[in-house]
């Protein structure tokens, strides 16, 4: 006769041990995040509240509110991020759609060309745009020799150049999740829409597009957030005319050795990013529910 609670304690111990082992697997990653993320961000936070005299002070934040140049920098940062995201959507969505309609093997081949820029150094790509876009650059000299325009057009060291470079770099971040979402849309949905009487265009807007928006939204969000903290491309292609938060952080440290001011900018950028993510996550859920309506 076996007791009703036979082996109960042993089995529970096995269960606990198993969970402990599983947790152990994640400890290197946990440690890494603690050392390279939590501690530095905590330090950043602390430094931003230390004034020039070494005591607790809000002067780093007050400066941001009081000085016009700072608000202009934030406006520029958001402007560049919005425009880059918008252009990425306009270029990336149709491309992702085209890829999603190809046979899978051909699509992966084409996807390599989309990803190719990923495997090239960011700096190299940015300077390549400089070579192409500058006054005596390839595009201007070819266009003029072909007679397309007579005077060199200013395409770099301004907003235009910054946007061209940033869209090029950000495009894969938009295309990948959008393409993934589109691939997951069963062809049967489109067949069903068509069978029920929808013209191809109507079927696209009423069925395909709504089903692809989660991917598009995730991609756009990623692009936008990456843009907020972008440095190399606006620094090189903006020619000092497009000043984003990241560039101000660098000049605060390198030119003025003001860690407090730089940290405060970093904290504000981080907080803004987190607010955007939070709002976006709320919106995503809302969207799923509201999407049922029509």
């Amino acid at each position, binding site marked *: 006769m076996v007791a009703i609670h036979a082996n109960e304690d042993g089995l529970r111990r096995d269960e606990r041990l198993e969970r402990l082992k599983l947790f152990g697997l994640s400890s290197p990653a946990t440690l890494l995040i603690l050392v390279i993320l939590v501690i530095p961000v905590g330090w950043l936070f602390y430094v931003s509240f230390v004034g020039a005299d070494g005591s607790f002070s809000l002067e780093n934040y007050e400066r941001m509110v009081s000085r016009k140049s700072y608000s202009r920098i934030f406006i520029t940062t958001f402007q560049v991020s919005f425009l880059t995201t918008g252009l990425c959507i306009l270029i990336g969505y149709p491309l992702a759609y085209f890829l999603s309609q190809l046979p899978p093997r051909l699509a992966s081949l084409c996807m390599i060309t989309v990803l190719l820029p990923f495997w090239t150094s960011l700096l190299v790509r940015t300077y390549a745009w400089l070579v192409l876009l500058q006054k005596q650059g390839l595009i201007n000299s070819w266009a003029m020799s072909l007679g397309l325009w007579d005077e060199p057009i200013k395409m770099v060291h301004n907003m235009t150049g910054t946007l061209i470079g940033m869209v090029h770099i950000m495009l894969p971040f938009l295309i990948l999740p959008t393409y993934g979402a589109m691939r997951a849309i069963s062809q049967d*949905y489109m067949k*069903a829409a*068509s069978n*029920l009487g929808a013209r191809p265009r109507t079927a696209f807007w009423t069925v395909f597009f709504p089903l692809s928006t989660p991917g598009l939204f995730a991609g756009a969000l990623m692009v936008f957030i990456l843009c907020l903290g972008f440095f190399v491309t606006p620094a090189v292609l903006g020619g000092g005319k497009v000043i984003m938060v990241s560039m101000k952080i660098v000049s605060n440290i390198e030119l003025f050795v003001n860690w407090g001011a730089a940290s405060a900018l970093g904290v504000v950028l981080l907080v803004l990013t987190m607010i955007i993510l939070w709002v976006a996550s709320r919106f995503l859920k809302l969207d799923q529910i509201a*999407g049922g309506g*029509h």
Partner: protein
Amino acid sequence: MATASKDALPITVANVTKTYGKVHALDDVSLEVKSGEFLTLLGPSGSGKSTLLMVLAGFTRPDHGSLKFGDTEVIRTAPHLREVGMTFQNYALFPHMTVAGNVGYPLRLRKRPKAEIAERVEKALETVQLGGFGNRRIDQLSGGQRQRVAVARAIVFEPRILLMDEPLSALDKKLRDQMQIELRRLHEKLGMTTVYVTHDQREALTMSDRIAVVNHGRIMQLATPHDLYERPANRFVADFIGDSTFLKVTRQGDRITWGDMALAHGAPAPDTAELAMMLRPERIALSDSGPVEGANNFAATAENVVYQGDSYLVQARLSDGAEIILRRAMSGATATTMPAPGDAITPTVAPEDTVLIDGREV
């Protein structure tokens, strides 16, 4: 057959061929579906049955051939202009719309007034016994409920032809059996010309007015369930429907013999070089008292006896080494008289159950 509704349309398929590379998905298929008929395309996977359905819906463009709904040629008509209802194997319900959103979709496309849409959606949902489910999300529904929504969406705009692509294959057996009867009842009520695709022979036998057995892109036989089961046209049909045993038989003058045993058979033998005898497991009797007068009596040894609840299955070996399978229904008495492995048994088959068919493999 269901009474043909005045709006139902006959379908005429003529000489439709579709090749993928060298493979004939459809090989010169001609077929007529009568107005209001429930016709099933039955075949193994890859037989071409789904391709034919896709041609009817307009999603597959054949190489050549003609397709008429009523008197209208539609082979080049775009799918969205064909006005046929269709249900898909995985239902293809739009996940971003509610139940009412899905069912109302074809009506919104047709720009019906809002009040009319709401009314017709509710009526269609009631027809499939889902009244009041309009506000549910698709992911809140069970498999059977999704199936019903798919049907409601396919019938709500009152198409005159309904196509169904393996609609019950994702459901468990109990629900499938129940839905078969429900779909059949629905067909009787609405009277639409229905083309139904399945690989499940029992489903086909249960639901159809007529069944077209499809293999290698060709129609092997088009007949009523009864004729298909009792008088299969060839070896493929006989094999695909039911679990038959085939024994090679020979023609000697006007006699048909198996080994040196002359066979009594009901219908005349087909006029082919090779002949086979088809024995259905449930049509083979076991005689306890030796050979039965007037029937074909075989001598066999039981090898395996399997209890299956409602019946038992006997695998037996005939005197020439061929294996036959027979099934006997369970009743109180048979339970005790089940043969044991190794027993000598006398399977007997009545002449009308001894069906002779073309022996060639198709």
